[in-house]
């Protein structure tokens, strides 16, 4: 019995949700988006936070909600819970991001509590001490995780001299952070100028913007801003081998150059990356997982940061097949850099890129994440429609051209974390190797 694969029905066009936007006199931009699928609201507050001390900003992220002049950590958490809410802060080299949600009927209270913390966080001595110790413990655990160690080595290799080169503070640095340093950093950097508040949910956008203005309009706008220099050009070179004695797998990473979301090559590069290894039905994944069984979850992604973009290829492979996995990876990169893909491969990648845009917009949390991330790059949700059009227009020639420019082994910076004694000789037979000095 042979059955034919059903054709796809006509696609529904991408439609953007109802939204409202206003920049308050204190500099805070508020974007409210209606997605009434569940009676909740998602909140994202993105504050530029570049060029801040690594350890202090990390601890600040852990203690922003640790108390105000009138409320303790526990009281803040309890009051948020009362409206089904929760808020937390995270830090990266570009920004501080407050993320949270609540029952939609609790939006006003959620904003009120957020405003109170932004105006009046006190970083109590005891809580700062507790949270620094917790963070130090977590960093110690991270240092035993191969994925973390491989990332640390890769960042150091590809961003020399740039703030992106080191993104995790040391345990000692974290333990040395003092509460007064956090209070000073908050006063200096946690201000609304350049910040974006995104609200998504079962809301009336105009009313939500109005409410946010009322609650956050008094947030003080004084302070300074900082801009990062652009990331350095990726310098290709020998494979950096980082020893992890006894490792049963090797962590393979390859950095390649990439471009930002608004660059004319971006859509074509996204598609070329998919054809190479950016989704399951790619050449590389079908090769090293489904044909060879070298690995479980290989992936290849373009990472966008404010100061620049980088393409990163990642796989955890069995120690004994480290060199062959590297060979197949370089082969697939080189094949795409030297020969155009087939029309069918391009169409499949294009449909996946377009479809996953629709999926990403279909939840409140997904929309909130997209709107907040885009805002950090000066973009709005209409970028989705523009990007869709560029994906739809990309040709085989475009793919071949960007693959040669960005995906060529000759422009790559490879790193492997693994048991050097077992893998070095075989890997050195494929590419020049430099062993990380201790």
């Amino acid at each position, binding site marked *: 019995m042979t059955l034919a694969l059903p*054709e796809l029905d006509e696609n529904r066009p991408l439609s953007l949700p109802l939204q409202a936007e206003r920049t308050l006199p204190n500099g805070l931009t508020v974007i409210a988006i209606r997605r009434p699928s569940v009676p909740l609201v998602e909140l994202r507050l993105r504050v530029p936070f570049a060029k801040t001390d690594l350890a202090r900003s990390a601890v600040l992220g852990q203690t922003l909600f640790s108390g105000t002049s009138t409320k303790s950590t526990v009281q803040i958490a309890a009051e948020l819970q009362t409206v089904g809410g929760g808020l937390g802060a995270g830090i990266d080299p570009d920004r501080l991001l407050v993320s949270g949600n609540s029952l939609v009927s609790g939006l006003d209270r959620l904003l009120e509590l957020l405003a109170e913390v932004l105006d009046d966080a006190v970083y109590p001595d005891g809580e700062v001490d507790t949270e620094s110790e917790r963070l130090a413990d977590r960093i110690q655990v991270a240092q035993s995780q191969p994925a973390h160690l491989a990332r640390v080595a890769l960042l150091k290799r590809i961003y020399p001299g740039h703030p992106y080169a080191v993104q995790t503070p040391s345990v000692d640095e974290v333990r040395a952070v003092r509460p007064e340093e956090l209070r000073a950093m908050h006063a200096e950097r946690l201000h609304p100028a350049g910040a974006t508040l995104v609200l998504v949910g079962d809301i009336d956008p105009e009313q939500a913007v109005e409410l946010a203005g009322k609650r956050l309009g008094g947030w003080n706008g004084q302070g300074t801003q900082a801009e990062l220099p652009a990331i350095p050009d990726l310098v290709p070179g020998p494979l950096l081998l980082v020893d992890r004695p006894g490792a049963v797998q090797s962590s393979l990473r390859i950095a390649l150059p990439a471009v930002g979301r608004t660059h004319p090559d971006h859509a074509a590069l996204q598609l070329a990356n998919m054809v190479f290894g950016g989704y399951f039905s790619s050449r590389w994944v079908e090769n090293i997982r489904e044909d060879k069984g070298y690995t479980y979850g290989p992936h290849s992604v373009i990472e966008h940061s404010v100061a620049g973009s980088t393409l990163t290829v990642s796989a955890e492979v069995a120690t004994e097949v480290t060199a062959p996995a590297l060979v197949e990876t370089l082969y697939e990169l080189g094949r795409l850099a030297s020969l155009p893909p087939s029309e069918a491969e391009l169409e499949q990648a294009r449909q*996946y890129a377009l479809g*996953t845009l629709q999926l990403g917009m279909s939840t409140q949390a997904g929309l909130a994440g997209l709107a907040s991330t885009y805002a950090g790059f000066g973009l709005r949700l209409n970028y989705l429609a523009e990007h869709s059009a560029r994906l739809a227009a990309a040709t085989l020639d475009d793919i071949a051209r960007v693959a040669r420019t960005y995906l060529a082994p000759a422009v790559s910076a490879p790193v492997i974390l693994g048991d050097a004694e077992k893998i070095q000789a075989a890997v050195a037979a494929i590419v020049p190797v430099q062993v990380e000095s201790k």
Partner: protein
Amino acid sequence: METSNIQIPRTAYEVERFTLANGLRVVLSPDRSAPVIGVAVVYDVGIRSEPEGRTGFAHLFEHLMFQGSANLEKLAHFRHVQGAGGTFNGSTHLDYTDYYETAPSNALERMLFLEADRMRGPRLTEENLRNQIDVVKEEIRVNVLNRPYGGFPWLKLPPVMFDTFPNAHDGYGSFLDLESATVPDAAEFFDRYYACGNATLAVSGDFDPAHARTLVERHFSDVPARPAPARADFAEPDLTTERRESYVDSLAPLPAVASAWRVPDPVNDFEGYLPYMVLAEVLTDGDASRLVERLVLKDRSVTSVGGYIGFMGEPFEVRDPTALLLQSHLPPGGSVDKVLGTIDEELDRLANDGLTAGELARTQARLATHLLRETDAVLGRALRMAVLELQRGNPGLLNDLPHAIASVTEDQIRAAAATLRPQRRATIEVVPGGNQ
């Protein structure tokens, strides 16, 4: 000061149920607010059903369901889903195995075709079996062997708590057992457990129900009828004396501990079970919860504490026997005895003194947010409804869960806390063997 209780909202997802002549149970839940669909097929077989000497087989077999079927070459499933703009996966649990896709709604019929084709039977070949054994071994290396705290506590605690093979064994499997797997084993496993009478299909999202029903009938009606096997009884008696074990994790830099207590039957005693779900949150959800406040913020005897029901953390997708788990990571040199003693003390305090004003209501409000958020994604809804249909014949329960949670009373929480005694507890301790 806490404000007055907030109203817990209710969702109103439509639910249509029917059963095909071959025994396949179907749930349709239309929601046209976004042009996407979720498709979930769930089979009533999981880790607890795999045969002795074949640990990890349910999961290995899940991989084989992606390796081609009558009308699909190897790799075709992946390409057809992703080439339609969708994503796919499958996962193996204690009591069920799921297969799912989410995609733009114009791909609905294609997704149904793909699931129906493998429901008729996967292509089981020696080459695909050997390839997927290699892939699964790499999965286990990534998730268990090459990282600190691998398999803690979900693989490490069941053998302490349980005595029978179905409940106690390692669900990821030993390399020896995995390598011993054969194609006839796989064929037999499919014949026994992957009958359409032993499965449910749930479709949620952007479709017209009448049209979707036509499509479901078109693709699934001719799957040969095979009856569901009788479900084995996995019951074990409760513990009457404390059990405690430890192991050295050579990669872990810091100590950790997890304890579990048996809870009432999640399916047959839902009323008795729900208070334990709320209790886990009262104890561990956020900085205002009992154990975070005491252990993390006040005593600093742990750096994190979590509480949940079911070894795989799926309170509405697990059958009896199951447990409430509390797990903690400790600072350098931390004392596990002290942590366990403090937990006992806090449970006593809760059982004896009850909750503070507003404590139950705020925990229930936050739980409502968590539940609503999980089902906002069209696929989250399809998966939960497929399992609710499979295990309870009641996918519409999804709409009622926030209110069911909100109806749990303080007396029920106190009574639940009172049952978490040391003599009913199974504990596993991680002794750090890594760089300290």
